[in-house]
């Protein structure tokens, strides 16, 4: 490098080009110690073979955790459909309405 040229070059003090983050806090989430007897929602974006994958989850989880219950995705709507925002906006109230202790959400790909 030509040091002289480098030293003579104009210098620029430049500003940070990003912006402040705003992150909303969340409620404390109580961990489930056991899935037995729990109600689990299956929330789906109707893509990427979720019908097969969710069926597998139901089968294997039912075998391991007695009394586990599933609420099918149709009860919640399509979280990737044209009314996605409305479906997601209602999701928490729907989960509570069906007494869901937890939710399995898919398929992101």
């Amino acid at each position, binding site marked *: 490098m030509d040091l002289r040229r480098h030293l003579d070059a104009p210098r620029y003090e430049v500003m940070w*080009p990003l912006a402040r983050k705003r992150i909303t806090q969340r*409620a404390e989430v109580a961990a489930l110690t056991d899935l037995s007897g729990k109600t689990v929602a299956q929330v789906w974006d109707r893509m990427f073979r979720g019908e097969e994958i969710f069926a597998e989850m139901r089968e*294997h*989880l039912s075998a391991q955790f007695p009394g586990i219950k599933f609420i099918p995705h149709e009860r919640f709507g399509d979280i990737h459909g044209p009314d996605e925002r409305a479906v997601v906006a209602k999701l928490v109230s729907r989960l509570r309405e069906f007494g869901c202790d*937890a939710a399995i959400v898919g398929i992101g790909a």
Partner: protein
Amino acid sequence: MLRASVTAEKAGIPTVSLISSGFLRLAEATSKSMGVKLPLAVYSGHPMMDAPEQVSAKAKAELLPAVIAGLTAQRESAQALIPESEPQPGSIVFSGDLLEVQEHFLEQLWSDGLPVVPPTSDRVEEFLAHSPYPRDHVIGVLPNEGREATALSVAINGVMAGCRPEYMPVLLAIVDAIADEHFRLEDAGSTPSWEPLVVVNGPIVKQLGFNFGQGAMKVGRQANTSIGRFLRLYMRNVCGFRIPPGDGDKGSIGFTFNVALAEDEDAARRAGWSTLAMDLGFGPDENVVSVMSVVCITAPLYSAGSHAVDHAHQFAEVIKRSFAPWAHVGLRKGVWTPLIIMGPEVAEVIASEWSKDEFRRYVQSHATLEAGMLEEFSLPATAMPLDLKRLVAEGLLPESYAESDDPARLLSIVVRPEDICVVVAGDRGRNQSRGYMPNHHQGALTSKRIVLPDGWA
């Protein structure tokens, strides 16, 4: 999909999200930016590429343990997810010569790979002097990283993109448009890889020297090029849609940014047609930006003849053939708004016999594909059949889409005539037009009035 998980978690309901391994970095970045570290169950590879027995095996071996672990895992406290310390907006973060600035910005992933104009305080102030808003004015909080879109951040990225200070009102209106919920900016990192397209209308087109004639969509005129570049740079820096080694943008292949498009309003008026902005409800003398996604562009659309139908026939033929592989997605969402850039002389021939609405009706009714072909393209993309009866029952499509089960029946790929947008621009000397396809409701056409500062000449 992650928004559903985050919504539930923020309400105190534990979730686990099923994702493919290729989606992992985006999922981690997105969930973190939304303030929740989501438990993820990762499917190696992509389920669309596996045989049924492989899907079953991976579900049991990979997803099941992660689902159990995820639902029973202790959550990190919200406090632990407050991002690491970042500079204050407007702070000086580096000092160096031109090349050192470029290197620093590249290392920090603050560049689009092209040289940037150093955003010094003096230059940024010149931009802010052309803003109708104060520097801290917050236009919105933008996905994907939940950052505030401020006049200051617009000015800094405008400087970097090579804009001129007087472009500032246009840049602010663009960010106002993408910040509108209707635009669905949160989907800008989706795999189809769409790019935003800015359309400018009004007297400001001539005031700022936009090219609306020959080569209208080519790099080479400062207003068109730098404003188009600005939006891509802003979505990268402030929104956080970055390709590797960054994250947030999961576009599979993609294409380069679009230069801003300006309408040849004199040509539209000569033809007796309204401009795009007027079609969208604005006055003829209002300055307006419209922003929409573009995922696909037609081949050059040459049309010839002395009658409107000669040209409209060619538009319908080219559009249906160019957009055939992706039209099913627009039907799934019930809406998409193809945009036609129509050459001025073509517009004059069509307008001599038809209104713009008549042209739209012709193209919509003649741009048709066999239902079986739409279905054939749909399955590899989503693994879900194009269930037209359900879409009709849900009110997304008119009843005509479910009148028959015949796979050979012809269906319009554009749902409604009024969804077709027309902008007159391009070479007066040639009979060429082009069609631009949006990514359905992602990056939906959104327009905003350009607010000028006091003293604008």
